């Protein structure tokens, strides 16, 4: 029998050693940080879920999955350059990504970097005549689509002196169109002011949304000239106390795209002090760029990032090859330039990604939670120890010893499986302590009954363990079922709860049924066989 006990003790010692190694091994090998991986809710950080954005539904399911996979790599590159330790980026479902960033300070900046598509294009600014010619037709299209009553006040009044625009209705446009009454409404034309530069119109700040909505009308889109694209600029212009947004008419075909970009940096323009992003193209990209720009010396070139014209399009004075720069204009700061350089270096996302879920916990709240969780855990464990020893005395003490091994197994298990400890995870831990205690209670109560039934100490203990076993197995397995389902359906924190609960159940089963029983066997060996067993 004693060899049985020593065999059991060796098994227990082995389990404890494995758990200790899982817990302390990494730091013994010189790795820094806590062996337990803390969840974002405990250490602070951001959880983001992104989805491939395809509002028009033009992508096939395969294309979406492919886009998500490639976006994962590119976002990974960007985050690496942004300098976040151990980010987690994984694809879930067909077209979604989960990004977890621990302990970051500037969440909004990180989000902007992740979310930015960073699609770079260079296009020549046209003289805008293609659009001007069609304006009368576009005006009547807007009126036809929305009805005259739906137009805002500004678009309905006839031009006043100050607003008298410079787009004299070209004759050609009027001849092509069946002519509406002379006093026709000109909702779009009235809002587009001449900037004095060819191919650039200005829209007053409050009217931007209106113009956008007109240009987004399907019937208007269909009638825009195919050869050009109409894009907003990032730089606003103030004239006479009013803010105007520039609208550029550029070639539809780009000279070149960011695909050929190899490097980008952010610096201050030595001359003007404004932030600029010089970049370099590949050899092949340089050749394409050279060919393109050589045909357009003297024209203005719009640098377009994610569909917005950056700064003020520069005039091409000379043929450009593999080097050029993006000017961000006066409103931008260097950080913004750095972020643009970063996303350009990491490459463009194959498709826009939109954030569909965000969970952010600030570092201070995380620290509060750790402190409070730790306090609660210690108080909870102390309460259990007091209750067990007061109620079951020596056997209770043995159960408490078992409980300590249980805690070691759970923490070692969490470290070994690299599971993440979250706040609900701590709750799960506490709950599984309750279950570990329950198993002991079941056994001890059963032993008490067996003793009352007249059995000797030794047989009472044996049959106590034996009879309590079926209830312990059933209750542990049903809880395990719940925990596994929770893991399947839960996100971050809830998953953490499921993980600690599952590890806790397994550990509690082992300690109650094996460890505590071993301790009781030793105890029975050492006491006088005739003494009455008191539990």
């Amino acid at each position, binding site marked *: 029998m004693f060899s049985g006990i020593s065999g059991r003790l060796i098994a227990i010692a082995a389990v404890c050693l494995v758990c200790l190694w899982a817990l302390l091994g990494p730091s013994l090998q010189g790795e820094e940080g806590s062996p337990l991986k803390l969840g974002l809710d405990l250490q602070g950080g951001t959880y983001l879920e992104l989805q491939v954005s395809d509002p028009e539904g033009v992508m096939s399911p395969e294309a979406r999955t492919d886009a998500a996979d490639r976006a994962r790599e590119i976002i990974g590159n960007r985050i690496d350059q942004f300098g976040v330790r151990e980010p987690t980026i994984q694809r879930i479902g067909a077209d979604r990504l989960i990004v977890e960033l621990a302990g970051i300070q500037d969440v909004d900046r990180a989000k902007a970097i992740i979310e930015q598509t960073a699609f770079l294009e260079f296009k020549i600014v046209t003289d805008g005549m293609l659009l001007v010619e069609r304006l009368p037709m576009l005006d009547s299209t807007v009126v036809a689509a929305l009805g005259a009553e739906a137009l805002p006040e500004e678009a309905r009044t006839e031009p006043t002196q100050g607003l008298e625009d410079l787009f004299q209705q070209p004759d050609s446009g009027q001849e092509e169109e069946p002519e509406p009454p002379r006093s026709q409404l000109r909702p779009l034309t009235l809002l587009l002011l001449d900037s004095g530069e060819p191919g650039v119109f200005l829209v007053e700040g409050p009217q931007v949304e209106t113009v956008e909505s007109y240009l987004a009308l399907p019937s208007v889109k269909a009638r825009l000239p195919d050869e050009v694209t109409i894009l907003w600029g990032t730089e606003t212009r103030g004239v006479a106390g009013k803010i105007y947004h520039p609208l550029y008419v550029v070639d539809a075909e780009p000279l070149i795209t960011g695909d050929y970009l190899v490097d980008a940096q952010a610096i201050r323009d030595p001359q003007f002090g404004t932030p600029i992003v010089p970049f370099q193209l590949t050899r092949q990209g340089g050749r394409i760029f050279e060919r393109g720009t050589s045909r357009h010396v003297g024209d203005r070139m719009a640098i377009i990032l994610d569909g917005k014209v950056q700064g003020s399009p520069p005039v091409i004075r000379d043929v450009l090859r593999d080097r050029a720069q993006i000017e961000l204009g006066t409103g931008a700061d260097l950080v913004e330039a750095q972020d643009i350089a970063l996303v350009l270096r990491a490459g463009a996302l194959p498709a826009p990604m939109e954030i569909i*879920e965000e969970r952010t916990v600030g570092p201070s*709240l995380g620290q509060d*939670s750790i402190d409070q969780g730790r306090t609660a855990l210690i108080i*909870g464990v102390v309460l259990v120890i007091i*209750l067990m020893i007061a109620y079951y005395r020596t056997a209770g003490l043995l159960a408490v010893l078992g409980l300590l091994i249980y805690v070691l197994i759970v923490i070692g298990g969490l470290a070994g499986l690299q599971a993440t400890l979250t706040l609900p995870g701590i709750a799960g831990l506490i709950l599984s302590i309750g279950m570990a205690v329950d198993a002991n209670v*079941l056994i001890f109560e059963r032993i008490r*009954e067996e003793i009352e039934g007249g059995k000797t100490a030794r047989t009472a203990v044996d049959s106590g363990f034996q009879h309590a076993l079926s209830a312990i197995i059933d209750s542990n397995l049903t809880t395990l079922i719940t925990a596994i*389902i929770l893991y*399947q*359906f839960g996100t971050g924190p809830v998953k953490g709860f499921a993980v600690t609960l599952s590890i806790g159940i397994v550990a509690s089963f082992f300690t109650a049924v094996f460890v505590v029983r071993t301790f009781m066997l030793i105890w029975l060996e050492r006491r006088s066989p005739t003494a009455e067993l008191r539990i």
Partner: protein
Amino acid sequence: MRLFANADYKFLEQRKKAYMVSAALVVIGLLSIVLHGGLNYGVDFTGGTLFQIRFAEDVTAADVRGALGEAGFDNLQVQDFGARGEFIIRLAEFLEGADRELQTRVDQQFDESFGAGTYEVVRREGVAPKVGGELRQRAIGAVLISFLLTLIYLGFRFEWRFGLAAIIATVHDIAIVFGVISLLNIEISLPSVAAILTIIGYSLNDTIVIFDRIRENLKKLRRLPYIEILDRSINETLPRTVMTSGTTLAVLLALAIFGGAVIREFTIVLIVGIMIGTYSSIFVASPALLEVEQRSGGVRSKSDRRKVTATAG
């Protein structure tokens, strides 16, 4: 020390009263849900944005509401949270969408109303409406699947009557817990669904321990009437029921008091659920087993009782 040693309470005789208590609890809960206009779903399930904000200076909930009103948000809740000058704000809008324009509006308004740097957003949870709908479906799915699997497991380990009685008791618990959630105006979020699933697990655990004893006593005490076997089994397991519920509640109370505001609601739901679960395993599950046995004509017929042997450890 021993509590409830050799207890001999006639629990089953009291079952009519227990039915009334249970019915009253369920009805009160349902009334509360109806009067509140349904359950209070959090942003996890409806979509929207929740943020917890901490002000350095004295700011009232009304100030916060006013500032957000100025920024053009009218569908919002502002709630005091923990310390003074700390609030939870819930907006129906998902601020991340559409180029984060709404988020910028909120930030600018707060900077304007309270001054930049005088506040800290310590937590933010944003869920797009479509994700909210998905999460709701997944939560309902999780509860139903866990039900189904448990039923299958119990059917395999016991016989179907035990499984049915256990499910009746669990449905009873969930109904009451939802009522309490509604009464305390706690919102249904992912953590509260986790709490509800935990309660299901705990309540089943409690019921199973008693059913395990009934199963054993049915084999051992064949001559006794069914109702006495039930009473006896409940009484025999009573010390364990009290001790386990007691320690679990003690730990949960420690968590509720010292664990911080973030998980307080989660813990309160668990505490209520465990008390209900303990009550139901005695006063609902066993009577339900009796009623099922009587209706299915299975009382004292041993032919279809599955023989279960416990494996020794």
